[in-house]
C-alpha cells in the first residue's frame, strides 16, 4: 500500500503542519470572527427588539394606569359635585321654606292684629250702640231720663257677664 511508503511520510507531515497552521490562523483570525460577528449582531438585534417591546409595553401600561386614575378622579369629583349640589339645593329649599314660613307667619300675625282691631272696634261700636239702646229703652220704660254713667256700668257688667270684654 502506498500509505506505508515511509519516504512519503515526512513531506506529507511537513505540508500538513504548514497548511493546518495556515487554516487555523485563517479560521481564528478571519473566518470565525466574521461568522461570530454576524451571529452576535443578530442575537443583539433580537435582544434589543425584545427590550424595546418590553419598554413599549411598560409605557402602554403606565398610560393605561394614568388614564384609569384620571377616570377614577373625574368620577369621584363628579360624585362630590353632585353631593354638594344636593346639599346646596336642600339648603336653598330650606331657606326658601323658612322665608315663606316667616312671611306667612308675619301675615298671619298682621291678620290676627287686624282681626283683633276689627273685633275691638266692633266691640267698642257694639258697646256704644248697646249703651245708647239700653239708655233709650230704659228712658222709654220709666219715662224719665237715665244717667249715662249708670247705663255704662250696667252694659260693662252685662258684657263681662257674657264674656266679651268691655272696658
Amino acid at each position, binding site marked *: *500500500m*502506498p*500509505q*506505508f*511508503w515511509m*519516504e*512519503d*511520510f*515526512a*513531506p*506529507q*507531515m*511537513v*505540508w*500538513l*503542519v504548514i*497548511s*493546518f497552521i*495556515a*487554516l*487555523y490562523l*485563517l*479560521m*481564528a483570525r*478571519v*473566518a*470565525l470572527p*466574521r*461568522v*461570530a*460577528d*454576524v*451571529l452576535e*449582531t*443578530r442575537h443583539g*438585534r433580537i435582544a434589543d427588539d425584545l427590550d424595546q417591546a418590553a419598554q413599549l409595553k411598560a409605557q402602554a401600561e403606565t398610560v393605561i394606569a394614568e388614564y384609569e386614575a384620571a377616570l377614577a378622579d373625574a368620577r369621584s369629583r363628579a360624585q362630590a359635585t353632585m353631593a354638594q349640589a344636593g346639599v346646596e339645593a336642600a339648603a336653598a329649599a330650606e331657606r326658601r321654606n323658612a322665608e315663606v314660613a316667616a312671611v306667612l307667619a308675619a301675615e298671619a300675625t298682621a291678620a290676627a292684629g287686624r282681626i283683633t282691631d276689627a273685633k275691638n272696634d266692633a266691640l267698642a261700636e257694639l258697646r256704644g250702640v248697646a249703651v245708647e239702646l239700653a239708655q233709650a229703652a230704659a228712658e222709654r220704660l220709666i219715662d224719665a231720663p237715665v244717667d249715662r254713667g249708670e247705663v255704662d256700668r250696667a252694659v260693662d257688667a252685662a258684657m263681662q257677664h257674657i264674656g266679651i270684654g268691655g272696658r
Partner: protein
Amino acid sequence: MTAERHIDHGSPMHQFVIGRLNDWQLGGFDISFSKAAAFMFGAVIVATLFLVLTTSRRAMVPGRWQSVAELWYEFIADMIKETIGGEGRKYFPFVFSLFSFIVICNLLGMLPYSYTVTSHIAVTITLALAVFALTTFIGITRHGTRFLSFFVPKGVPLVMLFLVVPIEVLSYFMRPISHSVRLFANMTAGHTMLKVFGGFVVQMGVFGVLPFALIVALTGLEVAIAVLQAYVFTILTCLYLNDAIHLEH
C-alpha cells in the same frame, strides 16, 4: 527507491500514490510538494473562501449559503458546549479547523480524479498526535501531578488497581492510534472499494450496469461516511479535551 515502489496504473491502490511534483529538501527533510500537499492547501482555501464569501453580506436574515456557514459554526460550537462546556470555548478555533480540514479533505476526495488527503495514515496520525499532545499538555498544565489520577479509576479495589492502571495507561497511549486508523481505514476502504467496482464496470461489458448502479449507491454512502468520519474524529477530540480539562472518566 521509486523503482521498487511501482504500482500498476490499473491497480485500485494506484489512487493512493502521491508522487512528487518537485524534489525540495530543507535541512535534510524531504519537503517535496505533492498532490497531497496541493489538496491540503485546497482545503484551506475552500474553507476560508466559503466562510468569508458566504458572510460577506452579513445579512440579518441569512440566505442559503450564509445559513450553511452559520450552521457549520454552530454545529461545532454546540458540540464543544455539550461535550466540554464553557471551558471548551478556548479550543473552538482548533476544533473548528480540525473538523473543517477533515470534512473538506474527505469531500474533495469524492470528486472524480481528485485525491483524498485523509486516506493516508501519515496525515491522520499527525492530526491524532497533535490532539494527543494538546490534550496531554492541557491535562498536565491544568492539573499537574493530579493528572496521573486520570489513570486510577475511583472505587476500584486496591488489588485490582495493579491490573487496571496499566490497562488505563495503555488505552490512553493507544488513543492516537485508534483515533487516526479509524479515519484512514474508512477513507482507504471506501475509495478502494469504489475503484474495485469501477474496474468491474469496465471488465463486465454490458453487464457492467450492475456494478455501476452499485457505485452510484456506494458513492452516496461514501459522501455520508466522509462527513460522519470527520464528525467522529472531531467529537473524539472534544471528548479527549474534556478528559484533559475535567479529569473525568
